[in-house]
C-alpha cells in the first residue's frame, strides 16, 4: 500500500535521524522569531494591567509554560501508546525524549506561578488547585523518568514507562477540570472566552505569539533530543558510522 509508506518510513531510525536533522531549523528559527517578538510585544508594547500593573507580564512566560506542560504530556502519552500498540521503537524514543522537556516546562510554570503569587496573593505558594495539579504533574514526569532510569533493559523501560504514561493521562483531564471542580483563588482562564475576550488585542496577540513560539520551540528541542536518543539506542548499528562521520 503506497499510501502507508510514509508511516512505515517513520519507524526506521536512520530515516528519522536524518529527517529530524533536516526539520529542526524549520521549527527552531520561527520559534526564536515568535518568542522574541512575543516578548517584545508583551514586555514593552502591551499596556500595564489596570489592577496588576506590570506584574501581569509574567503571564507571557507562565501561561505558555503551563500550556506546554500539559501538551508535552499528551504528546508523550500518545507516542508511548503508539509505541506500545504498534511496537514502534521510534515512538518510544519520542516519548522518552519528551519527558525531560515536559518536566522543565512544568517546573518553569510552577516557578513563574509562585513568583506571580508573591505580589498578587502575598505569598509564594498558595495551595490552589491549579498550582497543586501542576505540582502533581511534575511528580508524574519525575515518576516516569524514575521508572525509565530504574530499568537497565531499554525495551522493558520503553514499554513499562509507556504503560505508566498512558495510565497517567487519566490525571490530565482531572488537572484540566480542577479549575471548575474546586473553587479557588486562581482566576478563571481568561484567554479563550469566545464571546468577548477579556484581554485587549495588544495584550492577547503577544500571548498567542508566545504560545505558538513555545510550541515550535518544544518541537525543535524534541527533534534534537530525539536524534540523541536514536544515536544512543542505535550505537552499535552500522549506519551510525556513516551518519556521524563528517
Amino acid at each position: 500500500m503506497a499510501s502507508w509508506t510514509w508511516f512505515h518510513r517513520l519507524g526506521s531510525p536512520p530515516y528519522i535521524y536524518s529527517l529530524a536533522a533536516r526539520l529542526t531549523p524549520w521549527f527552531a528559527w520561527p520559534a526564536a522569531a515568535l518568542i522574541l517578538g512575543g516578548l517584545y510585544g508583551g514586555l514593552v508594547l502591551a499596556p500595564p494591567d489596570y489592577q496588576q500593573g506590570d506584574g501581569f507580564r509574567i503571564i507571557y512566560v507562565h501561561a505558555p509554560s503551563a500550556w506546554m506542560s500539559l501538551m508535552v504530556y499528551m504528546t508523550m502519552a500518545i507516542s508511548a501508546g503508539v509505541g506500545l500498540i504498534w511496537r514502534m521503537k521510534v515512538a518510544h524514543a519520542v516519548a522518552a525524549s519528551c519527558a525531560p522537556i515536559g518536566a522543565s516546562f512544568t517546573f518553569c510554570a510552577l516557578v513563574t506561578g509562585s513568583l506571580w503569587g508573591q505580589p498578587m496573593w502575598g505569598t509564594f505558594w498558595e495551595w490552589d488547585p491549579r498550582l497543586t495539579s501542576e505540582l502533581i504533574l511534575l511528580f508524574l514526569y519525575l515518576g516516569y523518568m524514575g521508572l525509565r532510569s530504574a530499568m537497565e533493559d531499554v525495551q522493558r523501560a520503553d514499554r513499562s514507562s509507556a504503560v505508566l504514561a498512558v495510565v497517567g493521562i487519566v490525571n490530565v483531564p482531572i488537572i484540566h477540570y480542577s479549575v471548575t471542580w474546586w473553587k479557588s483563588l486562581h482566576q478563571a482562564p481568561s484567554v479563550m472566552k469566545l464571546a468577548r475576550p477579556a484581554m485587549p488585542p495588544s495584550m492577547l496577540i503577544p500571548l498567542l505569539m508566545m504560545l505558538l513560539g513555545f510550541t515550535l520551540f518544544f518541537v525543535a528541542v524534541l527533534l534534537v533530543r530525539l536524534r540523541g536518543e536514536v544515536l544512543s539506542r542505535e550505537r552499535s548499528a552500522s549506519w551510525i558510522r556513516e551518519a556521524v562521520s563528517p
Partner: protein
Amino acid sequence: MDRRDLIGGSRDVRTGGRALTPALAAARLTLVRDLRLAFRKRGQLVQPLVFFAIVTTLFPLAVSPELSRLRDIAPGVLWVAALLSSLLALEFLFRDDAHDGTLEQYALSGQSLTWLLFAKTVAHWLLTGLPLAVMAPLAGLSLGVPAAAIPGIVASVAVGSVALSLIGSVGAALTLAVKRSGALLSLLTLPLAMPVLIFGARATELAIKGGDFSAPLQLLAALAVLGITLAPLATAAAVRINLE
C-alpha cells in the same frame, strides 16, 4: 482491546457466555489461594494495620494533644495514614509470586491474566483495605471525632481503599523487575492517588462536621469503578512486559 482477553482465556476461543465461566473460576481459585496464603502468615497481615495506628499516634505527639485541634486535622491524618499504609502493603502484592515463578505460570496458563491479577488485587483489598476501614473509626475516635461520623468514615475508607488498591496494583506491576522498588513505587503511585486522597478527606471532613458527605463519596465510588474497569488491564500489560 481484545474482548476475549477481557472475559475469557485468551487461548481458549469460545463464544462470550461460555468462556466467562472458566475465567471466573480461575479468578475465584486465585482469590481463595491468596487469602489462604495470607492467613498462614498472620504477622505480615497485621503490619500495615499497626503502621496505620502508629502513624495516627504520631500526630497528637507532634501537633498537640488537644482534641479540639486534632479534630480539625483528623480527616487529613486518617487519609494520609491510610494512603501510606496501603502503599506499604503494595510491595508484597506481586513480589513473592514473581520470585517463585507463579506469575509466569499465570501468564502461560491460557486463562486471562487480567482476571487472575484482578483476583489478586481483590484479595489484597480484602486483606489490607477492608481492615483499614474497620480500624479507621478507632483511630478517628482517638482524634476526637464524634461517634456520629463513624458511618461516613467507614464508607469513605472502604470505597477509597478499593481505588487505592487498584491504582497501587499498576504501580506494583510496573516495578516488579526493579530491585528495592519502595521509593520508586511511592513516586509512581502517590501522584495517581491524589484524587482519592482529596475526595476521601473531603468526605471524612463532611462526615465529622455532620454534613452530607454523599457527593465526595460518589466521586470516590466513581474513581473506584474507573479503577476496577481500567487498572486490571494496565496491571496485566505491565506484568507481561516485566516477565519477558
